């Protein structure tokens, strides 16, 4: 079906003119059907999302009304205000923002520095190290999850631990535990290295002849040329960290250190009944990543298509 209508449309005007009226009508029929299916699909896809927004500005009573009212009768932002008045809620957003921004900044720096070193420097051990990195990329996170937890628990001199890492909770239940293990990524290094292949070596040589050191070449020559890749990766990292649930769930236990996702998840367990507040919270928890996506869409879609980043 899709292929046919594509033919009907993409063929040049002269061919279209030579076509009989019947086949053109048939092409138009296909096209109408295509739009109908696409629009119906969009409506189904967007409905739950739209419902979240509608419900977030309704009173609990209106929200429970049958039939469901898609257009709020008495729209109100009271839910949002009330949600943020709950204990620690504002703090959760700050936590998420702090963690996601820190991780993104660290990853952009560390990943690109490592990618540059792997791609543009020649040093003993380069090949085996890179192969080791590639070879371990396929290991599912669950395999390293438990050791990572135990290692964090026993970081010396943090969270009440002594020099031997005993006695306290170490980096568990702390920003350190959320940020440090996530501050560099093999996948990110790999992708940036691929991108850096397009940076001509002559440029680096010229900079070297001008007396630039290795770090300066990275900082002033290579990085500026990698901006598109860095931008896409930055958005992805931020989104991933903002959305992450599993890791905070495992290592964070104090209410005031919750991230937004963890906070929301516990909020609905504790408050099974105030769905309108939950919906307001959900909208706010979605906004930063949604806005980032809408702003940088073009960039991101290209990145997804090329690399499979999500």
């Amino acid at each position: 079906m899709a292929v046919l209508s594509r033919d009907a449309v993409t063929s040049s005007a002269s061919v279209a003119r030579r076509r009989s009226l019947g086949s053109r009508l048939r092409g138009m029929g296909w096209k109408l059907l295509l739009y109908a299916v696409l629009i119906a699909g969009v409506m189904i896809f967007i409905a739950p999302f739209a419902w979240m927004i509608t419900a977030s500005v309704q009173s609990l009573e209106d929200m429970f009304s049958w039939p469901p009212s898609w257009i709020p009768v008495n729209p109100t932002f009271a839910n949002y205000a009330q949600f943020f008045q709950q204990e620690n809620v504002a703090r959760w957003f700050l936590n998420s923002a702090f963690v996601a921004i820190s991780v993104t900044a660290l990853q952009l720096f560390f990943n690109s520095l490592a990618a540059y070193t792997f791609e543009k420097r020649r040093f003993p051990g380069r090949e085996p190290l890179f192969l080791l990195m590639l070879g371990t990329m396929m290991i599912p996170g669950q395999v390293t999850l438990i050791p990572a937890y135990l290692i964090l628990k026993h970081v010396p001199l943090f969270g009440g631990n002594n020099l031997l890492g005993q006695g306290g909770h170490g980096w568990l239940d702390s920003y350190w535990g959320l940020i440090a293990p996530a501050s560099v990524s093999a996948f990110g290094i790999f992708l940036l290295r691929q991108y850096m292949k397009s940076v001509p070596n002559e440029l680096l040589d010229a900079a070297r002849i001008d007396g630039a050191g290795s770090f300066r070449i990275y900082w002033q020559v290579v990085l500026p040329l990698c901006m598109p890749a860095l931008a896409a990766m930055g958005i992805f990292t931020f989104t991933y960290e903002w959305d992450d649930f599993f890791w905070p769930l495992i290592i964070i236990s104090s209410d005031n250190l919750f991230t937004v996702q963890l906070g929301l998840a516990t909020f609905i367990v504790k408050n099974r009944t105030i769905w309108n507040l939950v919906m307001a919270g959900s909208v706010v928890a979605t906004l930063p990543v949604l806005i980032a996506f809408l702003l940088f869409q073009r960039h991101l879609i290209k990145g997804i298509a090329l690399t499979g980043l999500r």
Partner: protein
Amino acid sequence: MVAAPRSKGASAARDLLRQMRKEWTAYLFLSPWFILFSVFTLFSVIFSFYLSFHEWNILEPQKPFVGLQNYIQLLHDSLFLESVGNTLYYTVLSVPLSMVLGLLIALMLNNQIRARGLFRTMYYVPVVTPLVVAAIIWKWVYNGDYGLLNYYLLKLHIIGHPIGWLSDPNLAMPSVVMVSVWKGVGFQMVVFLAGLQAIPQEFYDAAKVDGAGVFNRFRHVTIPLLAPTTFFVAVISVIGSFQVFTEIFIMTNGGPVNRTTTIVYYLYQTAFKEFDMGYASAMAYALFAIVFVFTLLQLRYFRRREVEY
């Protein structure tokens, strides 16, 4: 005679050292990655393997070596076996469904149509929605008493009475699958769309000259030339679906009657609720093995069907 090769070896080692010292900044630049990589990947992989051979409970002072006992216990643990079955069930439902839907939407969008970008964005919105939020919204949609789904299905007379989607043992997993499909299709669509756009128009033209109809062109041009993309999407989706957790955690807590307890959910319970880290590590390795086997199978399947034009 003996000294010669040794000194040769020694000078090679000296050369290597000299080179390493000359390029010391390279190691400095790699150090942030290398430190985290050695601790959280290399050491962790080995440590987790070590754990899987021990009875290792955080709360118990004794952590005895038990050999293969954890792995043997896995094979006799009916809940673990059920969780493997549930995970396979989830995968078998969600991966083909989201791939077919993703491809269908991509095929439709791969036409000269108006507002293509807008359509793409709309289908992609669920992908951008945080998983926790998606699960919360759907929990409401599925609600037995006042959920949207029941309302519209009742109104269209598809069902006669409200259904507890997440509380019915037979419907819970398919309901969770729908959420994952909703959340993931946009991603698959974008990847398929890129794959479709990479197929040169000449192939379609040539096939048309040869008299191939719509269906045959799809079958003999689109499908084979899209195979690398399909393989990529399939592998990524299968790996992801074996690790499903958040939807389950928020919507069903593994219930009703363990019908949605997946491997990772059970692993989470074992490691972080019961603190039985040895047993949970064995589970993690079992999961690794399953994912590995499935990836190899897919690789072989797609290799066999590879074509070149």
